[in-house]
Each structure stands twice: as structure tokens, then as C-alpha cells.
């Protein structure tokens, strides 16, 4: 409660020619993540003229607008007014959150090396990762793709310098105390430590994007894929 960030946060910065970014912190933190999720809801509700699209990242809200007809100072002023309305760091998590249990086969070429970087054996890594309940902090990068966290400190390891040519669809990867799960095969700098068959993006479905920011997940270790993920409401 009232857990604000020290100093200059939140800040509003220009993001390219037609974007503004409202950041609630420099590093990922629980209050800053909640602040971002809540502030985006408020920006959408305020229906500010000229705003064409909004989204959240881990600790920030992005908005794209029409800078030819609505200049930057005016848009900034609108956002500053909204920011001053309340303590966004004290905001609640979104409603209707769910807990997903996603069967995962841990392993692959990069597991041992990644575990070593985290200072543990592969077995210890699997044990720890499969027992940690993580939260969807944001959806991004690819359709329906979650960034999940926060993992124990040992997992504060950087992404790789070289890109892995292709992590398969459903690949579970780790870096900087976060997990990511890929909706389609992709090259990446994240380190793959497991594989799932979870469908994150279902374009033909009424709900094409399955996970929502605020949802929780556990990547439970299994010997082989096939069983469906389960989902329950969190009260």
C-alpha cells in the first residue's frame, strides 16, 4: 500500500515520432507492473482525442497518437493530469485472473548450460522452475506471447549474444528472471529450457489471445507432452 517508487518515476518520454511512453520504473517490480496495467485501463477510459492505440509492457504504458493534429506538449499534459489523479503503484491487479497449469518437458541443448549460468545443476533447475508460480506481466513480442515472472534471483542471467536460429512453437525460455513462451517458431536470444504444446494464439477462435496480463502459471514437469493445460479462476 502506497508503495511508490523513489525519485523521478513515473516518467513520460517520446517513443519515436508518434508515440509516448509512460514508465513506472527502470526495473521490473510488482508495484510498477500493477501501475502500468491499471494506468492503461485509465488511458483507454479517458478517451483522449488523437490517441489511436495503447498497450502495456512490463512497467510502462505506450500510446500511439496523431502528432500532426495533436502535438506532443498537449498529449503530455493530458497524461500528466491523469497520472496525478492517484497513486498508480497501489493499484489492484486486473479482475478475472486465472491460474494455468501447463505441462512442460524440460530439457534440450541449452538446459545444462543455462542451469550452470544460474549456479545450479540441470536437475535443480528443473525442480525450481517447475515449482515456481509465475505471473503474466505483459503480453507482447508475438501474438498472445506472455512474459512471466518473477523467478528467483539466481535466474538473473542475460540473454545470449548470438541468436538461437529457431526455438520451436511452444518453447519455454528463460533470461533476466523471466520466462517466455513462444506462440510460433522464432529466432531468439532467450535460452530454451523446456517445451510445451500450449496454443497461445488461436486466430480462428472467439478469444484469439488466450493468456491475459495478471494470469498466473505453473510450468509443471512431465515426461511427455499430450495432456491439456488446466485453468482455474483465482479468487
Amino acid at each position: 500500500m502506497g508503495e511508490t517508487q523513489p525519485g523521478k518515476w513515473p516518467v513520460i518520454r517520446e517513443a519515436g515520432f508518434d508515440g509516448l511512453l509512460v514508465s513506472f520504473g527502470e526495473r521490473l517490480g510488482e508495484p510498477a507492473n500493477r501501475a502500468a496495467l491499471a494506468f492503461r485501463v485509465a488511458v483507454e477510459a479517458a478517451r483522449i482525442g488523437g490517441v489511436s492505440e495503447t498497450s502495456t509492457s512490463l512497467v510502462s504504458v505506450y500510446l500511439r497518437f496523431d502528432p500532426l493534429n495533436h502535438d506532443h506538449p498537449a498529449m503530455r499534459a493530458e497524461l500528466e493530469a491523469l497520472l496525478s489523479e492517484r497513486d498508480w503503484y497501489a493499484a489492484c491487479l486486473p479482475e478475472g485472473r486465472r491460474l494455468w497449469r501447463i505441462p512442460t518437458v524440460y530439457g534440450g541443448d541449452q538446459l545444462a548450460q543455462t542451469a550452470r549460468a544460474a549456479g545450479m545443476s540441470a536437475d535443480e533447475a528443473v525442480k525450481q522452475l517447475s515449482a515456481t508460480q509465475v505471473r503474466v506481466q505483459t503480453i507482447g513480442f508475438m501474438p498472445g506471447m506472455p512474459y512471466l515472472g518473477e523467478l528467483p534471483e539466481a535466474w538473473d542471467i542475460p540473454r545470449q549474444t548470438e541468436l538461437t536460429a529457431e526455438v520451436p512453437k511452444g518453447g519455454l525460455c528463460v533470461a533476466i528472471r523471466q520466462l517466455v513462451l513462444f506462440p510460433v517458431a522464432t529466432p531468439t536470444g532467450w535460452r530454451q529450457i523446456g517445451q510445451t504444446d500450449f496454443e497461445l494464439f488461436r486466430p480462428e477462435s472467439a478469444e484469439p489471445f488466450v493468456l491475459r496480463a495478471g494470469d498466473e502459471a505453473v510450468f509443471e514437469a512431465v515426461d511427455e507432452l499430450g495432456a491439456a493445460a488446466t485453468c482455474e479462476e483465482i479468487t
Partner: protein
Amino acid sequence: MTRALKVIRAGPQMSVQDMGRAGYLAFGLSRGGAADRLALWEGAALLGQSEGCAALEMAGMGGTFEATEDMRIALTGAPMAAAIDGAPVAWNASHLLARGAQLSIGAARAGSYGYLHVGGGFDTPVLLGARAAHLVARIGGVVHEGEALPVGEDAGTRTGLTLPEDGRFKGGKVRLVPSVQTGLFSPEERARFAQTVFTRDAKGNRMGARFIPEGAGFASAAGLSVLSEVIVPGDVQITGDGTPFVLLSECQTTGGYPRIGAVIPADLPRVAQAAPGAALTFEFVTLEAAREIEWKEAERRAALGKTAEPLLRDPRDIANLGSYQLVSGVTDGAA
């Protein structure tokens, strides 16, 4: 049979594109749409229709097509060799493609993406608000040999127009504005970036294009542990090996590599069209300067139709010049 364009032979990376689907950024889906959006405006100007009409984007190589009915076409973007029933036709121009006639389009002579527009636009299914194939997200896909692309009703009749040639197909200078992470790069590193000549790498697709610096790569104070943050087309990421990667229409929506700046929208077609080997330089401009440039570009785009001129044939190609009506409806303007 419905009005359609039959694909007799398809280049490897042809897809139906429009202005893309905005509004799904929060769900991790980038806008997508034509890699070179200006080409859609040019096609619209040549055919006198909306820039929202879907066109066929051809990466590097065209294909062979046949019309099921008489239809108007326009060719824009990267110039490619084109012929109708073997007779060469001008690029950057509109033509009549008669029923049964074969249109063949070859390799790009410069640039990367050529566009084939049809009067009425392609009438393929709308998914999540757009017809654009999003290849990375697996929405729609590439166009294959044997497909028949449905074509919408065409309200226009005029063909034989051309637009002044554009210089965006050979690299050159692109302007960028500072962005959220520009400050992670030292002033010296930014200055060196602006003085460096880059060569477009062979690696690249609709997600983005990689540029290889002459000299050493670039590094930021943050290294490789930057928090993932929103990214949009135009952002210039410095990847792990120090080379810049400029994000294009099908880019991911968040990224963890630091960004040195953001290419302004007016110059993004030049980046998309730079073919492997093309030389590119970057110039930082202020937000105010960018606003001025974008105003002018928006006005220029809106007035493109007025710059379209009747296509003049080379008299040497015409056996009996006198029997040709060079410009149909030329007296309309006086009425």
C-alpha cells in the same frame, strides 16, 4: 466465374497486403501490412481509388498472372520487368489487363518490394480487421501458384497513367528521431552512428532489415540486460553483435535490445526498399523537424493523384503513331 486474378506462376514471397491491422499491439500482434506503405498510396493514386485497397506484395520477384475479366492494374514499388502477352509495359504506371491476357513480372531491378494493384482491390477474406497476410503471426500466408485471387468491383475506368519516378529504391539517407533508449548510447557512439555508412545485409524480411556498419559495431551502456519494452516499426535496435536492425511492418511488439533511435515514418519506405548491398546512412533530426517533414509528406501523399500523368509511349515502338489515341479522355478537364 467471379472476378479474379489467376496466379499462373508465383515468386517465393508474394502476399496480399493492405495498411495492416492496428489495435492489437496490446495482444502482441504488430500492425503488419505493406512493407512499403507509400507504394499503396501510389497504386491508389494511379487507379483513383482508396489507399486501403489490398494489393499483391512481391518480394524481389514477381510472377505470371491472368485476368478472368478485363481489369485495371497498377505496378508500383521496386521496379520490375513487366510485360502483357510479351509486350513490355511501364512500371510505376496503370494499364488495362484484358481478359485472358497474361501479365508477367520478373525480378526487381532495384529495391526489394514490388506491388501489383488491381482496380477495386483484392477481395480476399478479412481477418481481425484486415486482408494483410501477417507471415510471422501465421495470419494468412504467401500466395501460391494455382490460386485465384478474388478482385473487388471497380468503379474506375482510367488507365495509362504514370507517376514521377521515386528515388527510394537505392538506399540513401534516412532520418531518425531520438527515442526512449537513445540516452543509453554515449554522445560519441551516436555521433559515430550518424557518420557511418551501412550496407543492407542479405538477412531480413518483413519483420526488419539488418544493416552492416563500415567499421566496428555499436554498444550501449546497458549491454544485453535491458528490460523488454514496446517496439514499433521504424525503431532501430542494436542487436547483440552491435549491428543495427531496423524494424518493419511485421516486427515483434516488444524487444529487449537497446534502440538507438526511431526512423521517421516518411523515410521507412526507403529502409524497407533498400536491397541487399544498398548503402544507407542515418541522420538524427529533432521531433520538431520530423513534424515538418511528416506534414509535407502527408500533403505530398494526398496530392499524388494530381502528379499522375498520361503514359507516353516511345514513338519508335509505335508503327503508326497517327492511329493511336495517346490519351483517352484528354479533353475531360475542359468540360
